């Protein structure tokens, strides 16, 4: 006999009628109102400019504007794929960014965990400020500092010669370029990246820590058994977003740190786009074609990462 409390078997009569979405929105109108500025921003600065991507299939004429310029089909892409530098730039971008992602991604998590373990509030804030500060320096300033420290007569080489060691050509070495990118990236971005993970950590229910302590868990065990599992969804989302940006990012850093000696290892896609847009005859359609290709690859990477995360039992971006 079916317990009366369960009521009639709804599955036999179909799913209950869901509340219409507009009623749902009206019900929570105050919350949705808060969404409006963000939506406006997104439409104005993210969706409307997407119309400009049509330039990739046009021969852009400034006087005719984006909409009035004549269509040329895939002609711009023909020129893009003919350029061997383009293919090199694509692979170089993926190579640089994958290595950067693998090495730099754990650092903000580690820093967040370490800062979380600090019990003295003032010390914690002081460290957090120190680590976050470099984020506010532009890459032009950071590269200036780096060049001054690593140049032939810079701080590091002067110290090496003072103690009788041979000087090292840091700036002109292709082998040193990628480590330089990674180190400067870690120095500049770790503190800023840790903020999101700290926020995730602060959202963990304190009862879990109390239970773990009652059960005799050490600090390390609490980190591995309570903190990390709780921030895993945030870690996954951040990782997927980073994968989605593998084909872009890093222009300011690479452009300012590169030189003639390192041009073979610094020609990433953004630098390539800059060069074809501003250093030879203007061709906005060509640059847009390259940018569109980059965005498509980024999207494929993002969706693939999302799918893989779900396949491995984690949360993805899209539910």
């Amino acid at each position: 006999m079916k317990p009366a409390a369960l009521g009639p078997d709804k599955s036999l009569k179909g799913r209950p009628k869901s509340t219409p979405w507009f009623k749902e929105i009206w019900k929570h109108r105050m919350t949705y109102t808060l969404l409006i500025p963000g939506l406006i921003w997104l439409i104005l600065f993210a969706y409307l400019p997407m119309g400009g991507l049509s330039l990739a299939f046009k021969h852009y004429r400034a006087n005719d504007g984006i909409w009035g310029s004549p269509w040329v089909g895939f002609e711009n892409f023909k020129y893009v794929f003919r350029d061997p530098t383009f293919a090199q730039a694509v692979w170089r971008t993926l190579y640089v960014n994958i290595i950067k992602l693998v090495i730099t991604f754990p650092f903000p998590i580690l820093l967040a965990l370490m800062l979380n373990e600090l019990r003295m509030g003032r010390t914690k804030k002081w460290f957090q400020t120190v680590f976050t500060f470099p984020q506010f320096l532009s890459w032009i300033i950071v590269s200036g500092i780096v060049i001054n420290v690593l140049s032939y007569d810079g701080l590091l080489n002067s110290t090496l010669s003072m103690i009788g060691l041979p000087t090292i050509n840091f700036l002109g070495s292709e082998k040193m370029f990628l480590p330089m990118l990674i180190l400067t990236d870690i120095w500049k971005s770790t503190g800023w990246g840790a903020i999101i993970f700290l926020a995730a950590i602060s959202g963990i229910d304190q009862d879990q820590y109390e239970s773990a302590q009652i059960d005799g868990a050490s600090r390390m065990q609490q980190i591995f058994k309570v903190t990390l599992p709780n921030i895993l969804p945030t870690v996954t989302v951040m990782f997927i977003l980073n994968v989605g940006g593998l084909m872009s990012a890093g222009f300011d850093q690479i452009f300012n740190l590169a030189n003639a000696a390192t041009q073979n290892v610094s020609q990433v896609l953004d630098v390539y786009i800059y060069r074809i847009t501003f250093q030879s005859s203007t061709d906005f359609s060509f640059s847009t074609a390259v940018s569109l290709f980059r965005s498509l690859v980024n999207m494929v990477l993002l969706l693939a990462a999302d799918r893989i995360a779900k396949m491995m039992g984690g949360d993805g971006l899209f539910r």
Partner: protein
Amino acid sequence: MKTKRKMLKPLLAVALSAVMLTVTACSKESASGGNEKDADGNYKDKLKISVAQTTEVKDGVLDNEFHKFWMDKFNIEWDYNYIQWDSWAEKLRLWVNSGDLPDVASWNYVHGDFMNYVDQGLLYKFPDDWKERWPNIAAAYKLTGLGDKLEELTGGTYILPKPVYYQNKPADPLVNQIGVIALRKDWAKAVGFELKDEYTTSELMKYAELIKEKDPGKLGSKLVPISYNADDALTNIIMANSEHSRVESAFYKGEDGKFHWGPADPETLTGLKLMQKAYKEGLLNPEFYTWKNNEGSDNFRVKGVAGITSLGGLASYRQDMDKNMKKNLGVNSDDLVHTAIVVGDDGKYRNLEQPNFWSSLIFSPNISKEKFERIMDLIDYSTSQEGQLLLNMGFEGKDWKYDENKELVSLLPEGTSLEDKYPARFEGLYVLGDDFSTINPAIKKEYRETAIKHFQEKAKLGTEGGKLATYDWDVQLYDSKAKSQASFEYQNEYANLILQSGDLEANWKKWVQSKQSLVQPALDELNSKFGK
């Protein structure tokens, strides 16, 4: 109620008309006044004209009497836009494409962009009779050669290429001013190096080796024997041995009537080998390729630690060097500096044949007729002899005079330049300062004479057994996507090649091969259009 509505309608119509009239009157395309003159020949109406130049005009500078003279004479109020060198090309490109070009602007002419802009109506088209109305400009314009060629392509005048030389051309044929170096003659004497007017690249390297070995300046590790940046090394080492190694002359028609790509020529490899030798022997700075703008020459004229630097052939450059060395090192440069031209290791002189223009003036397509005419009046005056004297010497009787031999004499106090007295004289919009620098008494006579001597020597050596890269109008005025894609920053490419490990020749061959997918389509196009 109906009566009220009836009254409201005409009122609204009047108000609307008034608004429309105001908007029209204030719109960019209309002028606030004409070019009528009063009885004294002065313009009646003041016009506000926007101008974009690479001369920095600091606050308050426009108040000095020099600038006031021009503003009063042409009844102009300037809306001045300073453009930094580094962002010049980008800024102009964005302004032109977005329709925000100031009324008149200096633009570093790029042929592909020019044709594109004309095609799209982004540049002002001059009236057909402009050459009769502004004869001084027309005379200078004619000498550029480019103006007429572009008219053939576009069917009108859309640009004023700036003449490098107008009335004071130093030599014929005109050879590019680059390829003149300065070396420390006191050190040369100390190490027993002969002073000459021309050196091969290897001779200069020999000098650098000697000063590195004997260190006559007692500078130790601070000494930079050859202080070239990547650009200078291309000019004074590679181009000296391969006239088609630069971007300006990379695509050229050979004796076989077919087009070739100069960076793949064996002469370029010779230049690269010399450059690598200089680098490996420590004659070039270990980080020369990171130097920007003046860092190479500053080692010579500001720090006094360099043996050789790239100077260029203009007398004004030598004057600047003198001034800098006096100011920073407290020395008289005449005792220390020797200038010379560089020839290839095979003894042949190489350089670029110089078209008589550099950069240009362009006008907004939205400029009013009145503004255009007013600015053309100003340029025409600035191109006249009176205007040139005013721009380059200041006011007659106050800043300069003619002596009994009708020679120009500066009346400025010793050590004062016209730039000190009247900074940022941007009104010289058209004819470049190079022209007057050959006769300008504000520049030491010896410097002017040496500069002219170098120009004449270059012309002589270039035509008598030398190899000047001819300025091929067909190539220069041909624009296509393929040609545009085959444009490279050769100074960086070469620097990268000589820094690579392994065999230079093998690396160079590999590099040449890697560029073929871009170079060959451009060569094919050129051969099909202009080749035999």
